């Protein structure tokens, strides 16, 4: 049973492996970078499992959290994984779960994105844990992340409290050789013990539960096993120390080695940034004249240490935003030690290519048609690949999951109440985002008598995060079949009377449908209009392939106006120089073109033509 082997695991896989090895029997998640691979890896590991494990891509993070929470109520171990802004969606159940507590171990993985590489904020989930009064672990490597899952489950069960693990992008997406063990078989039977004063706690019970929570946190803050790890040559006569956590600790440790600082400055690694170990706080104040805190992204440890001799992000000694890259930590260390830092060489900046929708992406013709049909329209949009519709001038706003529909309503009421002309408002939202948070907004629109167009860009997957299935596909996280939920059914049930489906590859038909929808919105008996733009993501392995392919070419009618490059921006359209001519011309890059044939609708001169049509 103690067979061990080394495997090369990504941080998220290490977390997934940790859940699998420690007897977790339910994992729920909603995809989001940098957290998406946690659940997928549990699916992969579960094939080695002997005991049943329920794994789900939930409809959103709040639902995922609540499903896992109830599983813990039956005494079994549960986990939920999401990205930091996903925790905003799950904030409601999260805050209360701290008060009511849990039964079986409950681990929340909230992955932060300092930098930010792929997020709308740099918010620090550790501060959210502070707000909720929940303990949080801060791993510095994939290996440590896996070890922390074990510690988190044990802590959670010892105090009947949810425990957060907060990795950051550099931990989630780093890979390391990690020791893997056989999974622990807990063999727990579900047993829900009724206790309405706790599980259905009304306000009269909350005061006592709050008191209990505070006592739990005090005890956790006093636990010796959770106090920061010292790297101190004893007896230390240093009056300065550096306190670090997460991957910033890993960078700092290596700088200590490189700059030979270990004999001159004490270093501490914080494993549990909240609640910060109480005896540690007292020891820092008693033993050190100055301390430098290196942490990402908010000053969570620094805030708990308090007082003026602590330097960090709150004091402004360390930059208050952004990722703490090793070179930046180097600079802060040198300054803390009163040395002038060496001038940094700056790495070459990539000339880069602006991110663009893939060749053959069905969102591109949908955006092209929207922009072309309503040149003066307002276009709220949302989170997903289709945010890149910005390049095509067809995305004006992008706020947070599902916000586009409510924002469309806000724009509508604003113009409608003035009595003047109402510009066409066309909202775009992906299929997964629609299920995640679009439905309540849609119902609200119908009830509040808003009138605008919603285009549901249904590419039959959650493309941006790696093609996780959404609920209308009838596929579960492990690929097995399940019931499919109909998007048109939901739209119709919400009370929308104008509902059509269209293939966005057929640009003229799509454009005509947009006109029809706009007329419906403005008619006397009108209301909301919903168009489902339906065509599979061509990058998805499960995609439904087009029935016909079109080998395209550019004829001599091309006069080099660049309209196709600017307004369609397909990566398979390349610009070539023409010898002896001032202007170049468009050409088709055969290596990238997937022969969808859509670009034939784009050139006003009709220069992009079908060279060969092939039925499949």
């Amino acid at each position: 049973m103690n067979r061990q082997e080394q495997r090369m695991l990504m941080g998220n896989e290490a977390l997934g492996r940790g859940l699998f090895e420690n007897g977790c029997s339910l994992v729920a998640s909603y995809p989001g970078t940098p957290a998406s691979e946690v659940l997928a890896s549990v699916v992969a590991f579960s094939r080695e499992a002997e005991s049943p494990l329920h794994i789900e891509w939930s409809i959103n993070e709040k639902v995922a959290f609540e499903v896992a929470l109830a599983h813990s109520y039956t005494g079994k171990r549960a986990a939920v994984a999401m990205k930091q802004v996903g925790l905003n969606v799950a904030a409601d159940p999260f805050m209360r779960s701290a008060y009511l507590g849990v039964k079986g171990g409950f681990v929340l993985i909230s992955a932060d994105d300092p930098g930010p590489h792929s997020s709308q904020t740099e918010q620090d989930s550790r501060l959210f844990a502070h707000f909720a009064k929940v303990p949080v672990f801060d791993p510095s490597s994939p290996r440590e992340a896996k070890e922390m899952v074990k510690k988190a489950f044990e802590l959670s069960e010892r105090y009947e409290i949810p425990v957060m693990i907060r990795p950051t992008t550099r931990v989630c997406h780093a890979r390391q050789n990690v020791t893997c063990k056989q999974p622990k078989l807990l063999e727990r039977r579900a047993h829900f013990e009724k206790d309405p004063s706790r599980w259905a706690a009304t306000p009269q019970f909350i005061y006592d539960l709050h008191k209990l929570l505070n006592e739990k946190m005090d005890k956790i803050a006093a636990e010796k096993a959770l106090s920061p790890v010292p790297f101190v040559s004893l007896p230390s006569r240093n009056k300065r120390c550096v306190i670090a956590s997460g991957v910033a600790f890993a960078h700092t440790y290596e700088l200590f080695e490189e700059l030979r600082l270990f004999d001159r400055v004490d270093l501490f690694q914080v494993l549990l940034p909240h609640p910060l170990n109480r005896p540690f706080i007292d020891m820092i104040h008693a033993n050190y004249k100055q301390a430098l805190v290196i942490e990402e992204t908010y000053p969570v440890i620094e805030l708990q240490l308090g007082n003026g001799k602590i330097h960090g992000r709150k004091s402004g000694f360390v930059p208050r935003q952004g990722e703490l890259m090793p070179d930046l930590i180097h600079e802060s260390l040198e300054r803390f030690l009163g040395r002038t830092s060496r001038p940094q060489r700056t790495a070459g900046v990539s000339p880069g290519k602006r991110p663009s929708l893939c060749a053959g992406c069905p969102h591109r013709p949908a955006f092209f048609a929207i922009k072309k049909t309503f040149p003066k329209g307002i276009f709220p949009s949302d989170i997903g690949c289709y945010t890149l519709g910005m390049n095509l001038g067809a995305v004006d706003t992008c706020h947070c999951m599902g916000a586009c529909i409510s924002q469309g309503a806000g724009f509508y009421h604003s113009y409608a109440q003035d009595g003047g002309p109402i510009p066409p408002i066309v909202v775009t939202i992906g299929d997964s985002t629609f299920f995640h948070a679009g439905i309540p907004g849609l119902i609200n629109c119908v009830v509040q008598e808003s009138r605008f167009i919603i285009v549901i860009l249904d590419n039959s997957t959650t493309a941006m995060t790696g093609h996780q299935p959404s609920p209308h596909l009838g596929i579960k996280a492990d690929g097995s079949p399940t019931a499919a939920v109909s998007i048109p059914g939901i739209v119709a049930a919400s009370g929308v009377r104008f509902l059509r489906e269209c293939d966005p590859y057929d640009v003229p038909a799509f454009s005509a449908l947009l006109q029809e929808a706009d007329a419906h919105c403005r008619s006397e008996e009108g209301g909301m209009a919903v168009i489902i733009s339906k065509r599979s993501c061509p990058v998805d392995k499960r995609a439904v392939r087009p029935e016909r392919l079109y080998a395209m070419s550019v004829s001599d009618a091309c006069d080099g106006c660049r309209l196709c490059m600017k307004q369609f921006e397909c990566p398979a359209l390349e610009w070539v120089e023409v010898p002896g001519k001032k202007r170049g011309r468009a050409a088709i890059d055969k290596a990238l073109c997937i022969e969808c044939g859509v670009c034939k609708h784009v050139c006003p001169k009709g220069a992009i033509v079908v060279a060969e049509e092939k039925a499949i």
Partner: protein
Amino acid sequence: MKQQLIVSGTGGQGILFLTRFFAEAAMMMRLEVLTSEIHGMAMRGGTVVSHVKVGPFKSPLVREGQADVGLILSKQNVPLHRSLVKPDGLIFVNSDVAGDYFSIDASKLAIDAGAPAMTNLVLLGFAMKQHGLFCEADVAREVLTRLSPRAHLEFNLKGFDIGYTST
């Protein structure tokens, strides 16, 4: 044993395969290993650089001027990533023109041998011949045998040998 490497190139050139190769080689030699991939924002054809740290390291990132070895698969990435390598470090570049580094026209050698996809392995074999890497050819062949899909195995080993025997 401690060695820091970077592998730089364009999406689709096999950067991630080489990264995995180094990780597996380290594990076979019972060495600690940490890797980190940094993708450019462009989807296809964008810049990719991966960091590999073999030995008792904690941080997954290679700092400026700290890498012992750089493998650069597209010559246009030389100005972007050479500064990650130590001034006295080894840089191997897939290039048809010579520079102040080790260069080999790996693309041409791979195309001539009938498999352009093995460019990365030609460069790997070439680098290994200089004995600057933490692992040697026998380990490399074993790891390639283990990692390569059956259909590519013969070509991958051939690519490696072309690089290893070129001068």
